[in-house]
């Protein structure tokens, strides 16, 4: 709960058009900025955050330190990409902006997103670092985007010059499958040197999967408590209804009890996590289920609680075994890989595919140890077909609450 004024320096240079961080470096950066602003304002209501851009026509302060989250999010829209990043000037302007903060009791912190190459000399950066240290300003550096030896060396030197008692940090984020924000959540930049921030970080991780600004349902409970309450209540009701429906479906097929439970628990999870990733997950799992009983059930439940990022990798591992010449299987593979980005619209595709008996039986035939003529398998298929219709109806109803988010 440190009282802090933070200035975030954004890199909006030409190098940010690159797509090696999904969907683009600039977008990943914007998401990370939103998350950081939310984290800072939640950890202490009197914290203020400001934003400036380092490239474009020149260093420009978009928002002076304020605790109004809406203002910060609004100014992130309509940002133009272009020009070259000027790291030294950016940090110096940030320092000046912090110097003129309204509440002098706040600690000063600068967070820099260093995406493009650093053209300044190491000496210049070290001098800047020492000046920051002298004025007790902490600095967090996020090294992503362009990767080269000199850049890392310079940024490490800058950190060494600024660092006073471990209040400053540097994070190197290489390009990869996981999002920039997800990587940052576990770093001390978010957890705030381990004091009470970790609770928020966990909440942010869960909320980030479902919301935009880090709040439940995308609505600030402080700004509009009634709306937040109404959304929460409707979510609970929907969940209760789904559980009742799932129980009913489970009763229909006695042997498929466990399968039904799995699907309902996965459907519960779809309410709070990215819908498509988990449903396809659970549906694939229910096919594999025929092979191992409890182990897979545990796995699927654990995975539906996990972040979609890790879900991706595990799914890939499973799928790699089932990769056959079967064209329908390849199509399913493609669909499930795309699931992670699409919304619940693809739910319907998946359920339609699975409702297609021939498709399913061809998959089952290709799996070892599964006999399509086995009565238990037949029952499962029947229950899934019954499920797919109420599921479609539920998906319709899921959509309005989902879109409200």
């Amino acid at each position, binding site marked *: 709960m440190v009282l802090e004024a933070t200035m975030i320096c954004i890199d909006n240079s030409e190098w940010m058009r690159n797509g090696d961080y999904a969907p683009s470096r600039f977008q990943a950066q914007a998401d990370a900025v939103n998350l950081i602003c939310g984290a800072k304002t939640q950890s202490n209501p009197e914290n203020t955050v400001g934003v400036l851009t380092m490239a474009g026509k020149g260093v420009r302060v978009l928002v002076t330190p304020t605790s109004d989250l809406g203002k910060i999010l609004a100014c992130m829209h309509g940002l133009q990409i272009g020009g070259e990043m000027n790291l030294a000037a950016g940090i110096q302007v940030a320092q000046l902006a912090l*110097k003129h903060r309204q509440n*002098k009791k706040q600690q000063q912190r600068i967070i820099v997103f260093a995406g493009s190459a650093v053209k300044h000399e190491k000496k210049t950066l070290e001098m800047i670092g*020492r000046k920051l*240290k*002298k*004025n007790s300003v902490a600095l967090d550096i996020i090294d992503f985007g362009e990767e080269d030896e000199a850049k890392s060396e310079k940024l490490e030197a800058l950190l060494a010059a600024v660092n*006073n*008692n471990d209040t400053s940090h540097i994070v190197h984020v290489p390009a990869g499958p996981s999002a920039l924000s997800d990587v940052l959540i576990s770093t001390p930049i978010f957890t705030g040197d381990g004091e009470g921030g970790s609770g928020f970080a966990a909440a942010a991780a869960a909320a980030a999967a479902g919301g935009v600004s880090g709040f439940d349902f995308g609505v600030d409970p402080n700004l509009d408590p009634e709306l937040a309450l109404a959304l929460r209540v409707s979510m609970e009701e929907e969940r209760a209804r789904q559980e009742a429906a799932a129980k009913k479906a489970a009763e229909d097929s006695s042997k498929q009890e466990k399968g039904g439970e799995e699907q309902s628990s996965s459907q519960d999870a779809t309410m709070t996590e990215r819908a498509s990733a988990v449903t396809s997950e659970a549906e694939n799992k229910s096919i594999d289920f025929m092979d191992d009983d409890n182990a897979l059930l545990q796995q699927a439940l654990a995975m539906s609680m996990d972040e979609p990022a890790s879900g991706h990798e595990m799914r890939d591992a499973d799928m790699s075994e089932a990769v056959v010449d079967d064209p329908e299987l390849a199509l399913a593979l493609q669909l499930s890989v795309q699931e992670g980005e699409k919304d619940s619209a693809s739910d319907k595709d998946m359920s339609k595919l699975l409702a297609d008996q021939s498709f399913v039986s061809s998959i089952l035939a290709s799996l070892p140890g599964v006999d399509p003529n086995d009565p238990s398998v037949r029952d499962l298929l029947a229950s899934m077909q019954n499920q797919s219709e109420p599921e479609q109806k539920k998906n319709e109803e899921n959509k309005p609450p989902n879109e409200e988010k």
Partner: protein
Amino acid sequence: MACLHDHSCEDHDCSSDWSLYKHIDLPKVSALNEAVPGSVKSVFKAWEERLNSSGGHLESNEGDPELLIFIPFTSDVKIKSISIVGGVDGTSPSKMRAFINREGIDFSDAQGMQAIQEWDLVENFQGVLEYQTRYSKFQNVASITLHFPDSFGGDTTKIEYIGFKGEATQLKRDVVATIVYELRPNPSDHKTKAEGGGLSHVE
């Protein structure tokens, strides 16, 4: 206890003169460019302890002898004189500039602003020298900021002890201590004893 002053100490007790340290708001003392965060608090102690450096001392960062110390008091004080004990080998501060009742001064402010008083210091390892203030200007001091721009040639500036001589008044500057913020007024919080009529209620 030997006072090392050039007067006989039987008449008065030196330590009581230098007792303004008791009125310093220690938790709120801060310094800029200190090597060890929080070490600034160790330089405010009793007169007898001024040469005792077991509690630590204040040192500036390597290669940069500038120091800026912000000292708030728990009540308004009048400061008559200041005593500084510096470090050996040229690490004593050579100049001192004071600013009164201003919060949040940083180095660029300190270098630009006109100080309320400036002194040229000498090396004072025994702590026997005191620097007089223009007393009329130091009458209602709620906080004092001391800026030491340079040392006697050393790489860093070391300060072992800072002492203040003067009087403490019991007055405090206006500080609004408890503020209650209301989003919407709650009439029950604002009921006044209606005298006679019922017209003095808040809608």
